[in-house]
């Protein structure tokens, strides 16, 4: 038996929102993956649009490199508005 490829499934729950990852499934091709995703992940009208992506096509950051990878942002507190003192009585800033 040949192993069917794995597909990652993304669902847009309603117009205006991005597609969000909901899980994965095995299917022989994209069309089947889409239909099966509908049956598995949107049986209760959880979505208005589905994307399926071959899992092998996803390049992910490595968990082992997490620290070095994301560290550069850690010491840049000035990217946040809370870093700045706003004088008394100033609104809408």
């Amino acid at each position, binding site marked *: 038996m040949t192993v069917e490829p794995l597909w990652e499934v993304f669902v847009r729950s309603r*117009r*205006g929102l*991005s597609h969000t990852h909901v899980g994965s499934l095995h299917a022989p091709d994209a069309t089947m993956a889409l239909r099966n995703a509908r049956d598995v992940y949107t049986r209760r009208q959880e979505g208005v649009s589905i994307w399926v992506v071959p899992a092998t096509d996803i390049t992910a950051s490595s968990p082992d490199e997490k620290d070095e990878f994301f560290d550069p942002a850690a010491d840049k507190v000035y990217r946040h*508005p809370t870093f*700045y003192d706003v004088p008394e*009585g*100033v*609104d*809408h800033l």
Partner: protein
Amino acid sequence: MSHLSYARAMDSFQATIDADSRIEPRDAMPDGYRKTLIRQIAQHAHSEIIGMQPEGNWISRAPSLRRKAILMAKVQDEAGHGLYLYAAAETLGVDRADLLDMLHTGRQKYSSIFNYPTLTWADIGAIGWLVDGAAIVNQVPLCRCSYGPYARAMVRVCKEESFHQRQGFEILHTLSTGTPGQQAMAQDALDRWWWPSLMMFGPPDASSTHSEQSMAWGIKRHSNDELRQRFVDMTVPQADVLGLRVPDDGLVYDEVTGHYSFTQPDFTELYEVVKGNGPCNEKRLATRVKAHEDGAWVREAAAAYAAKQMERAA
């Protein structure tokens, strides 16, 4: 598409708009809607990246390491905003390279505010406070724009903008509580940036060409004059805290309406700058084109490296 299915698709487009829901990339949409969005999002994207120039001008001369790090972070954010927006435009079936080409050849515009020079360090404060402040007033309603990808990009952008405005205010606050020379520098920056900031909201409603249709399509939520008023109402009390004088003799607070009445900017100046006759139009465009051309070898090297890696893997 047949006539009948076209008509049905347009009905469902209108129903989505009427329900104040969002249009998404694969939906059918009228040609005019698509074109309007492409023009607006591209112009918005161009403004983000051209806007890096007047501020970038001061990175090497920021008065402290703290200010320098902040300014770099801000300019870096603006590049990111440009990217979000070009990506949103691409969901409408255009190519970023083509949009950049339109910018470089003057067939698409960017916000006129960036055609003014940054003469002193106080200008960096004034840009953050007034220009980013005005941009926020324009962008907050765009978070509810009828086109999903544009609205979502705006949510990200607005979240990032709030530090931009605060760091500008902080710069001016430091100057306006400093030496008489620093105070004068802060006042001079407000004097020069006030009127162009008011122009950022576009021509008055009576002579605004695209507004009505954009409102009907849910692309625009408030008129130019409404947004300008909102900006003035928010900003004038902030100027009071800074101890700076808004350069408008006609500025009066109306106790009854809770709004300021104010003098309109000279819109003939706006039209002149849009036409290309502002103080820095030529310089901004030339710098942008040069940056693009100077960066060609980087893009070529990256593509060559990727091709080589692929070859090795094969």
